[in-house]
């Protein structure tokens, strides 16, 4: 693939950060802010009590939270965000059973050209309904999504819900490959990563990251399976699916790539059980500058890791 072309698109997500519980507060646990240094400086100084700010709200309400406008909201860094051109944010809590391990926050600098989607789907009366979502400029797709629901097993969200595992879908907008394909195609959405977000007392929350070629969420997506039922007593994780603009398909049915605990960035997530945001670090796959890896804890174990790279 031609990397020269890949350097051009502006990412849909402008900043990503991790918040970790420390005592009764959430403290900064790393992140990537690209060139938004003032916002980064403001963030590093920040901490959140339960219920405070966006991460604190995700912790307190035990659910992913989408914030589409900072002005006049509970977002504590609103002024710094405005100066940085950030307009929206999504907070994804990472729970292990009832215990909060971390909150991953992604921040977007929305304008009329930024297309992508970060959706939160929740079960209601046996169907997945859109709880909230941030779509950037993909207004038509947002409207369609608001008027769509998924039974178990259907579509990306319904598939994730039924499989209790992350799913990576290709060619969202071409032909009939995606239930909302027509509007997804019109919005230029091409790749979809769906992941279960287990919450205390709720097994039905699914988050979908839908990426467009023009303003991609990522150039590379990976799904790692770390369940003992898959990798055995030896532990570690297997790369069960993945696609990369530079390396092409990443999966290998017969000999899936495998990492052990503490081996490389994914191994680090396996070891700590916490999300990581790594940037400008040697050793990131395919020479990317940024990797975000998000663990999924389910049934008392770290079951999967999803990772995306810019």
């Amino acid at each position, binding site marked *: 693939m031609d990397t020269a072309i890949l350097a051009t698109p502006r990412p849909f997500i402008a900043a990503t950060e991790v918040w970790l519980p420390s005592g009764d507060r959430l403290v900064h646990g790393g992140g990537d802010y690209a060139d938004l240094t003032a916002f980064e400086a403001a963030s590093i100084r920040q901490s959140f009590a339960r219920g405070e700010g966006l991460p604190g709200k995700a912790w307190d309400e035990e659910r992913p939270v989408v914030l589409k406008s900072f002005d006049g909201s509970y977002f504590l860094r609103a002024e710094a965000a405005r100066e940085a051109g950030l307009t929206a944010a999504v907070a994804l809590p990472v729970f292990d059973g009832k215990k909060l391990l971390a909150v991953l926050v992604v921040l977007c600098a929305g304008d009329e050209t930024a297309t992508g989607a970060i959706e939160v789907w929740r079960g209601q009366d046996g169907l997945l309904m859109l709880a909230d979502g941030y779509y950037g400029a993909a207004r038509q797709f947002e409207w369609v999504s608001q008027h769509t629901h998924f039974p178990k*097993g*259907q579509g990306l969200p319904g598939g994730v819900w039924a499989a209790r595992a992350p799913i990576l879908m*290709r060619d969202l907008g071409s032909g009939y*490959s995606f239930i909302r394909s027509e509007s997804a195609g019109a919005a230029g959405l091409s790749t979809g990563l769906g992941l279960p977000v287990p919450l205390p007392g709720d097994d039905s929350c699914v988050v979908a990251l839908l990426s467009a070629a023009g303003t991609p969420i990522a150039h590379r997506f990976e799904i790692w399976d770390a369940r003992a039922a898959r990798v055995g*007593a030896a532990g570690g994780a297997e790369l069960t699916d993945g696609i990369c603009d530079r390396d092409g*398909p990443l999966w290998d049915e017969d000999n899936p790539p495998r990492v052990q605990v503490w081996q490389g960035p994914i191994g680090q997530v396996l070891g700590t059980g916490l999300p990581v945001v790594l940037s400008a670090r040697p050793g990131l796959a395919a020479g990317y500058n940024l990797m975000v890896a998000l663990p999924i804890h389910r049934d*008392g174990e770290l079951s999967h890791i999803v990772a995306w790279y810019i």
Partner: protein
Amino acid sequence: MQKLVVIGAGMASGRMLEHLFEAAPGEFDVTLFNAEPRGNYNRIMLSPVLSGEKSYDEIVTHDADWYARHGVHCRFGERVTAIDRARKVVLGASGDEVPYDKLVIATGSNPFIVPLPGHDLDGVVAYRDLDDTNRMIAAAGPGRRAVVIGGGLLGLEAAAGLRLRGMEVTVVHLPGHLMERQLDPAAGYLLRRALGERGIEVLCGANSKEIVGQDGKVAALRLEDGTEIACDILVMAVGIRPAAALGREAGLTTGRAIAVDATMTTSDPDVLALGECVEFEGQLFGLVAPLYDQAKVAAQTLLGQSAAFVPREVSTKLKVTGCDLFSAGDFAEGEGREDIVFRDPARGVYKRLVLKDDRIIGAVMYGDTADGNWFYGLMKDGADVSAMRETLIFGPGFQGGAPADPMAAVAALPDEAEICGCNGVSKGMIVKAIEGGAHTLDAIKICTKASGSCGGCSGLVEQVLALTLGGEFVKPAVKPVCGCTDLTHEELRRLIRSKSLKSMPEVMQELGWKTPDGCPSCRPALNFYLLVEWPLEYRDDLQSRFVNERNHGNIQKDGTYSVMPRMFGGMTNADELRAIADAADKYGAAVKVTGGQRIDLLGIRKEDLPSIWADLGAAGMVSGHAYTKGLRTVKTCVGTDWCRFGTQDSTGLGIRLEKRLWGSWTPHKFKLAVTGCPRNCAEATCKDLGVVCVDSGYEIGVGGAAGIELKATEPLAKVATEAEVIDITVAFLQLYREGANYLDRPHKWIAKTGGLDWIRERVVDDPDSRRALIERFDISQSVYQKDPWADHVATRAALYTPLADLTKEAAE
């Protein structure tokens, strides 16, 4: 440079070319024909393409660059019409003749299309190549309906893919469980459950009869039982047939496919064949692993090297995200085979190893496939596993130098490991409770709730008790149903009810059966408990019945059967007696009048059973169920009609009772009598239920016995009317059906309930309870009150025919 022509650009020939180009680049001038208008792609990954989880580009194995780099003349989209071996040329559909020095046939296979009426309708598709996949993708869409015929690997992957694309999907599968060639019923049940959770409807044991069309397009599938399933697309995924026609027409030796030797050479030394179109020592191939072995051998043969193909065991995985399934080898029942079974109901895990002569010959696992490849390796190597037999099922993590204690698995669990899934109780919590003084299973139940719900973890809790307390813990002596489970009959019934378990594999999985399919002790009991609990949902399993109940006759010591038609209340007439006499003559039966007031025809050969049943049925008679754990007879005296001492119409009441109750299955045989006065000519006071008519009404006694044990009935109730007798009898029978352990006669059951008071309260004193029991009985009768003889004559007569007359063969 030798001219090599390859027909078929599939995975096998593609792998062969890779070997060839790697070992001897430039040695062959290759022309590659392919009927599909494209080169080699990973056909196995079509299912994820269908589901949208992969793109076609990702599964292309050899692109145009690759073929160009190796100088392959690609003739894609061109079918080969003939091979002229005499002139050593291949004739393409374009009319071109392409000469060869060596020819490789790799035409693969064709999907089998069941020749149902309507199979040629628009919208009926097979599932074999990219074009089929694209057809399905084009037909898919939210709200549209798909039917998939075939619950094998391919059919289920198609179903899951179509479901992910938003369709309503029904899988129609003829055998009794999914993927029957790769899975046993237990794993098949778990797979079916997982598909159900994806919203995919699965119909097993469903026979397709006709594809219904509308305006030339598929509209529905009609099943043998008349059910119609509407659909916009119908996918046939019932198997493949080797595409051997080209080889056959070229005069190559063919059987079911093109015959090859171990060098992959056909009957013509210049023609090789490989892949799904070949047959080696009578064996066909459909999975990719042996095909790749063949590819390597074929390449070596072309290069003049010595190589031999050896078929190997294959393993199977299902490519449906979230369904973890592994199957390898042979897991059918067989002489000298042993099973090791591990089930974890809470996690939905089932693992089974089949051993023979201390070697693994089969492995099936669902839900936890981590050790699949390790078992598969042991199987392929023929490794002796006797030294690690006790811990084998736990996988390589538990294998050390010396055989470990099976309890090591529990010992090795961390404190936070969940023991009781129902109540979220960890091993650490149980240990803490034990250290705090809870030294029995019941005490643990009270302290922690562990094992208090489904009871499935009782064994584990007891192991934790044993580990923590050492010799201090004595496992309470309870008598389980059999060696397949630690559950008692009572626990089993309770759990079937409370967990809504409605099939045999479901019970065995969810209650952690230790064997794959149960045994002759537990299967009949389970079958009975299930049919009583779920009369409308559960289907009686003939194979779980004793031989007499399977063949609806009592097998005699010489292997013949006795046939006893029902005589309601012991009454018969001249027509019935004539039919019985004719049958006795026709089938050479001995005739015996029984103590139950019926006529037994003895000495009937098994193959004659359907005929004699049909003859008796034509005279209006039904089975007497003289062979069942069910209602037998209602013995009567002649009563007020004829007897000077008769106080009531005992014969009439007996007939009415028998007509109401016949056909019902009970824990053990159930005999009744109605006698017209206390002189008790019908011997009602030693029956399971006996009615003694008196001037003031009817005395109902229960729990009598006159077999090995001799016991008089105990009085249950005294009532004034016949209707009350019938109601109380029905209610009592139903309570017995619902409460007694399998193979307990009523008197044993009554003793276990602590006496008649508890029973009397439910069937006599409480009218609501009685009514509810009667309602449940009648629901059951709506299913089971049917003549099994007539049913077998209509549907199973062929099964009574001997497979071969060996005596005649020997004589010849």
